[in-house]
């Protein structure tokens, strides 16, 4: 019995606290940071319409839809629209600095707070993109996401070296498990829907005019193919939480994730959501593989620590 508990504790220790190379977290910061910055940049076009206290997402609307005072937002505390605009540009600057990895320890936390604040205020106009933005920024703020591919590294490269840390591992592990929770409920939620069983769910998505950016209605002539895509999509999503861990099934599961999410981005006009979900799946890419991939992408750039 004692041996059993020792084994469990050792496994727990290794799973959570073994030191980890920060490359995966750093790559996620660069990619997700770009999406984060763009997401908030787009708010600039309709800032007043959405965030004024009495227009589309009014104070009273926000109070009812969130239903809790814990869903905080700076928009609820600042009345002057001029000041809100100034704060908006300050938030954009922070997010840009976080994206390029400048004082990442500080800018990641500030960016996280702003991301939560905007999302909590914009409930009613938010969707999965905002949820994953918060999730990835949260874990990048926990771990050393500015250790590589950052201004921090460029500015301090002579004195600071890339150090594997337990904190990097904790951040990645949390992101992995959070992503599994998301797929678990996204998958099991679909099991309640009849169209996922009769094989027509994918048709419901691709024949929706409001989403459609790529015409796939020619598939109406191949209902079996629609059925197959539906069943495979559901099987993949419902089994993700189990099959993403074994090393033999992981490449298939992650490959499917990239295919599905980028497909949604291209065919259904949700490019940002498709990309952020694909980026989130990078938490399951090993640091050694990530080094090889980065080595290929940045082979001509000597400034970055790449695998040659």
């Amino acid at each position, binding site marked *: 019995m004692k041996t059993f508990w020792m084994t469990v504790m050792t496994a727990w*220790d290794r799973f*959570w606290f*073994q030191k980890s190379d920060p490359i995966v977290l750093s790559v996620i910061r660069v990619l997700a940071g770009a999406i984060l910055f763009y997401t908030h940049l787009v708010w600039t076009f309709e800032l007043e319409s959405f965030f004024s206290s009495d227009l589309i997402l009014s104070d009273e609307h926000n109070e009812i839809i969130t239903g809790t005072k814990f869903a905080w937002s700076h928009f609820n505390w600042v009345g002057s629209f001029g000041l809100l605009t100034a704060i908006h540009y300050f938030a954009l600057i922070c997010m840009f600095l976080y994206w390029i990895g400048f004082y990442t320890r500080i800018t990641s936390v500030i960016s996280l707070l702003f991301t939560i604040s905007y999302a909590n205020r914009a409930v009613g106009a938010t969707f*999965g993109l905002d949820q994953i933005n918060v999730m990835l920024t949260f874990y990048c703020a926990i771990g050393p996401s500015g250790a590589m591919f950052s201004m921090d590294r460029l500015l301090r490269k002579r004195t600071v070296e890339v150090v594997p840390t337990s904190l990097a*591992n904790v951040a990645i592990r949390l992101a992995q498990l959070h992503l599994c929770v998301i797929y678990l409920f996204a998958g099991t939620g679909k099991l309640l829907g009849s169209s*996922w069983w009769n094989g027509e769910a994918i048709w419901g998505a691709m024949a929706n*005019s409001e989403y459609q950016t790529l015409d796939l209605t020619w598939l109406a002539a191949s209902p079996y193919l629609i059925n197959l895509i539906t069943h495979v999509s559901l099987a993949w999503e419902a089994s993700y939480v189990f099959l993403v861990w074994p090393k033999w099934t992981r490449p298939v599961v992650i490959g499917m994730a990239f295919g599905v999410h980028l497909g949604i981005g291209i065919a259904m006009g949700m490019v940002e959501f498709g990309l952020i979900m694909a980026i989130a799946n990078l938490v*399951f890419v*090993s640091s050694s593989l990530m080094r090889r991939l980065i080595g290929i992408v940045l082979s001509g750039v000597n400034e970055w620590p790449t695998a040659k």
Partner: protein
Amino acid sequence: MSKSNSRNKKNRVGRSQLETGDHTRGDGDSGTGPAGHQKNDNSHSAVDQSMRTDWTLRTRIIVSVLVVLHLAAVFSAPFAMPQPSSELSVGIDSVTGPYTSALYMRHGYRFFAPDPGPSHLLRYEVIDESGDVVAGRFPDKSNHKPRLMYHRFFMISEHFWGLGTLGEPVENQSQVDDLNRAVTYLRDNGFIDQADWLLGSIPPTSNEELEERQIVKVIKALENDGKFAAAKSARQNFERDRDGLATAKRHRKVWLAGIAKYLKQKHNGAVVRIWIQEHLIPDYDHILDGGGLDDPETYGPRRLVYSDEEVVK
């Protein structure tokens, strides 16, 4: 201090190592799970040693407790919402809710579930002082750009539909009044069954009213069949939903007032009317017969949900 420095040196991934790709000692492979070890490598023990945490047992215990609590909170939100959900899951969510709400992590994550359904549009007309009318809709591909902004407007019409529709058939009100008078007449003259039958056929003045009538009927039918557990469950759900409906009604009113004000400002208008409309998904045959996704028959009826008083008069 010197001890800490030597430990840091030992665990460093040197720049030269990183640049040459020699990361045998520096690759924790956290993304792969515990299987990231190179078991056939002679340097196996060296890998384990260099990647072993330098956190104290106390730190590890504290972090372990924090990650377990955090992940329990992350799990509890989609476990409890949306309905149906157990009393246990709702109870746990009520404890973790403040934490997950503060982090914007209180979500159901049911993307395209249970079924990808039809879209919902908010159509509007804005009339200015001179009587000119501007018509538009949420979302609108030609006006809401970039695409992400289009999705913001799309989410507004979708979330609004989720509150239930008012759907007040103002033009049928006199007919509804006649039928209500007929029901009263039948009841007063002892034709109870006939009165109930007629009551069920009266068009609702709101979806909530229709829903309430139908649910009460279903609950009675369940009780008559001796299915008391199902009836109890239905009654509990109904009573909970009824409380939610009151909030939804207030929410619709507040939200529409904000949207109407936005439309008036944007189009320099004096009067606004807003309708909600469902855009259905056509079936295979419709497309194979040469139909399109936006054909008129794919749109449901428009239901007026907002109108300034001036228009009503």
